[in-house]
């Protein structure tokens, strides 16, 4: 377990910038913080050894460790001030399609302390008014939309709850069930309207809904259920109703946190904890698949009790990055109760100054989008088949045990919510417990078994070992600053698995190589999925896995376009930026048991590649390593001209077989037959690839996540390390590369 965890408010900061640190106790009484540069995070005794470097920055002395909770769950908050005060007659209404009915109370729309429509523990609709409650006979269903309302007629002293299940196929309008009782008027003191949650007695939000809500509305008189259905179906009619106090069209301001009221009262609100917008609504029947073309059909929000955007913990202290601190990967280390073995590392990058180049010509691209995609992932814990893909037993490290006990921390985009809807969002404004040095993983292969950040420290450690000066640039830096930042460098090195890319990032990197930059892609399955940032919500990322790709879920029919940007989600290969075009290779297979060597091919003897193999003997290279015992493995890429690999690219070496854990990617296996496996299909291989660009640049790609684990073998003294260094030294020279005539 982890007695203390924390996070910073940013994953990249320049010298002079301040970083806030939020800490919570999960058993610790006190803690001390220090500042460390991360050199090499793998603790495998067969590896080069764990190494960090203490930086003398005064972060204060011992602090009390205060417990702070995770509060997941999304909703909409409409501050109403006094608009609802004094109402006598009213109707609350919404159209709702629950996605998880599991015996928990849920709220659909609430004026807290006054009136609420909800779902009880037995799936019946409830209408609460003061201390009175109406309950429907009908049970709600995950399969249908329901038009629901709660009305009060003060003259008749009648409270009425209505529910109509819209079964879609029927030719007649759904027939509502109506239940009523007589009760006295209560004064309305509500100062807000909540949608998909309500307030508990302590004021905290509770009873989050898992499901979709469309067009919630509040009126200052009773609306008959049959009239209500027609009103809700037509916003232009609805907004002209004199009785309307507020009606919220979720398709407005879709790419923001803002919720727009279409009534004249302008009771606009905001989403809380990033529920999923741009989702098919009550009136979507497949008429259009792109929400940008028919936003009126995408009027629903899908809420989840497990949504998490910002943990919102109070700041414990802040760190100002010293002006002279060189760019690199650092961490605020939190040591609980004097026990260094239980230390927690809040990792972030110190980037070079925005206004002044550092003078370094080499940069390591710190793949924060991919770290966020995998943030707190639970693959082998939640997905039973993961062990088959690993080809070995699941190891749970301490941070995994923490995740098991604290699902409220929020998920990665590899998980599903409790209703089995895919998780579209991942945020860095919460602890990311697997973005630490030392931690083990599921997918890292037999040996070190490390993944993403910790695996990337094999490259950081190697740069340190060869005494290479370098800057660290994060995905977010590249997304924001584009080529303006990248053009400072001769060479950019990627991490082991830079899988998730925004359009800005793909175009910046392509622009870099097109204009003479040199790219060293030291990983596998890179540049694969489209992701988006949200201009109104810093620190959160969206991924919708449409159509193809190895993926744990699909976004649902009609929901393939990102809500944050309107981009078509899925593979870059389907969005005219195939990884093969950028780096010569693209994802072809995966397996997480053992890795293999490459075997040099005829292209390795081409004089264009002579600099790469100076001092290296073949024909096998990389028959060793910390990630599965070989340099080619885990996730592997192939060169393929049909997918965009430049025709003049040299395929220097390839792996020649893999275990039958390695299968074909779904985007390539159009007709499944049982011969697409690692011992049978030649297409399942890692291709070591090199090519020049017409702008004088060059690209070297390993097409293998396991490459860096081989670099770190034998204290970085081996042929894979030598090849990588040969490439780096030549790539760092100004002399332009020339493609063959």
């Amino acid at each position, binding site marked *: 377990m982890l007695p203390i965890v924390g996070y910073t408010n940013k994953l990249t900061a320049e010298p002079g910038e301040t970083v806030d640190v939020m800490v919570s106790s999960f058993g610790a009484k006190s803690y001390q913080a220090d500042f460390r540069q991360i050199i090499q995070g793998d*603790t*495998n*005794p067969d590896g080069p050894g764990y190494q960090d470097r203490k930086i003398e920055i005064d972060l204060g002395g011992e602090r009390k460790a205060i417990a702070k909770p995770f509060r997941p769950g999304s909703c909409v908050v409409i501050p109403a001030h006094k608009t609802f005060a004094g109402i006598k007659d009213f109707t609350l209404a919404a159209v709702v399609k629950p996605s998880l009915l599991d015996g928990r109370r849920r709220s659909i729309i609430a004026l807290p302390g006054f009136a609420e429509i909800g779902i009880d523990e037995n799936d019946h609709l409830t209408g609460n008014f003061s201390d009175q409650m109406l309950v429907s006979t009908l049970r709600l269903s995950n399969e249908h939309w329901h038009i629901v309302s709660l009305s009060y007629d003060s003259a008749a002293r009648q409270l009425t709850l209505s529910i109509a299940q819209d079964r879609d196929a029927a030719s007649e309008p759904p027939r509502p069930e109506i239940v009523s009782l007589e009760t006295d008027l209560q004064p309305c003191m509500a100062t807000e309207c909540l949608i998909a949650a309500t307030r508990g007695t302590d004021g905290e939000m509770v009873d989050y809904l898992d499901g979709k809500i469309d067009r919630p509305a509040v009126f200052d008189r009773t609306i008959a259920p049959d009239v209500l259905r027609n009103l809700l179906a037509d916003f232009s009619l609805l907004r002209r109703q004199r009785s309307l106090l507020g009606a919220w069209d979720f398709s407005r301001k879709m790419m923001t946190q803002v919720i727009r009221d279409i009534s004249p009262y302008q009771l606009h609100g905001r989403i809380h904890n990033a529920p999923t917008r741009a989702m098919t609504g009550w009136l979507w029947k497949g008429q259009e698949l792109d929400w940008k073309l028919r936003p009126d059909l995408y009027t629903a929000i899908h809420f989840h009790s497990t949504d998490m955007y910002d943990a919102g913990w109070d700041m414990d202290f802040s760190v100002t990055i010293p002006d002279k601190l060189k760019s690199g990967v650092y961490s605020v280390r939190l040591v609980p109760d004097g026990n260094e073995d239980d230390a927690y590392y809040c990792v972030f990058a110190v980037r070079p100054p925005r206004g002044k180049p550092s003078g370094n010509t080499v940069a390591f691209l710190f793949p924060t989008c991919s770290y966020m995609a995998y943030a707190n992932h*639970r693959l*082998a*814990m*939640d997905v*039973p*088949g993961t*062990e*088959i893909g690993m*080809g*070995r*037993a*699941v*190891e*749970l*490290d*301490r941070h995994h*045990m923490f995740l*098991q*006990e604290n*699902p409220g921390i929020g998920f990665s985009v590899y998980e599903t919510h*409790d209703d089995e809807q895919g998780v579209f969002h991942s945020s860095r404004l919460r602890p990311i417990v697997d973005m630490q040095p*030392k931690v*083990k993983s599921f997918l890292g292969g*037999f040996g070190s078994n490390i993944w993403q950040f910790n695996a990337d420290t094999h490259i950081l450690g190697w740069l340190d070992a060869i005494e290479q000066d370098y800057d660290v640039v994060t995905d977010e830096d590249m997304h924001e600053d584009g080529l303006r930042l990248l053009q400072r460098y001769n060479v950019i090195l990627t991490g082991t698995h830079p899988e998730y890319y925004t359009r800005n990032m793909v175009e910046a990197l392509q622009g870099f190589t097109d204009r003479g930059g040199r790219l060293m892609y030291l990983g596998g399955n890179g540049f694969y999925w489209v992701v988006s940032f949200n201009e109104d919500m810093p620190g959160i990322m969206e991924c919708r896995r449409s159509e193809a790709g190895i993926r744990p879920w699909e976004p649902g029919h009609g929901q393939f376009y990102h809500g944050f940007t309107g981009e078509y989600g899925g593979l870059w290969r389907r969005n005219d930026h195939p990884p093969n075009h950028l780096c010569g290779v693209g994802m072809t297979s995966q397996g997480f*048991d*053992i890795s293999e060597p490459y075997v040099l091919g005829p292209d390795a003897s081409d004089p264009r590649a002579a600099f790469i193999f100076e001092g290296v003997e073949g024909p096998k290279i990389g028959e060793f390593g910390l990630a599965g015992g070989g340099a080619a493995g885990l996730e592997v890429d192939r060169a393929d001209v049909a997918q965009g690999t430049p025709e003049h690219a040299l395929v220097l070496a390839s792996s020649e077989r893999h*275990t*039958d854990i390695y299968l074909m990617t779904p985007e390539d296996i159009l007709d499944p037959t049982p011969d697409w496996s690692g*011992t049978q299909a030649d297409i399942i291989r890692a291709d070591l690839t090199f090519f020049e660009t017409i702008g004088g640049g060059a690209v070297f790609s390993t097409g293998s996540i396991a490459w860096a684990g081989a670099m770190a073998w034998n204290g970085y003294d081996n042929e894979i390390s030598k090849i990588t260094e040969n490439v780096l030294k030549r790539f760092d020279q100004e002399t332009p590369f020339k493609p063959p005539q």
Partner: protein
Amino acid sequence: MARYQISDSDLLFASEFLAEPIGYHSPGLQRVLNRMRGADWAFKYILVTEERHSKWRLAKLPIKRGSKVTLIEGVVYTDLLEAERDIFKRRWKDLTGQNVETLLSQSL
């Protein structure tokens, strides 16, 4: 419900696995492992890391997210391949009701 059921005819694959738990497997052994490691279970045998790269404890992970991981008392490994072999034997027993080591010794 998984279609494939492990039986005595898979004993040769048990021998193959126990000789080399990780790496290249015959199609027959892979099918046995797919049955053991797949989705058709109420809990999963997992290894709780006590000391990274040197000490693990056997435990059961229930299928429901957030459930308590139950440590199996007294089962500690200091070698991952030994852990693989032990888990294989336990799963064979769970799925067939029989002790694979006994069966293997009888088949010699």
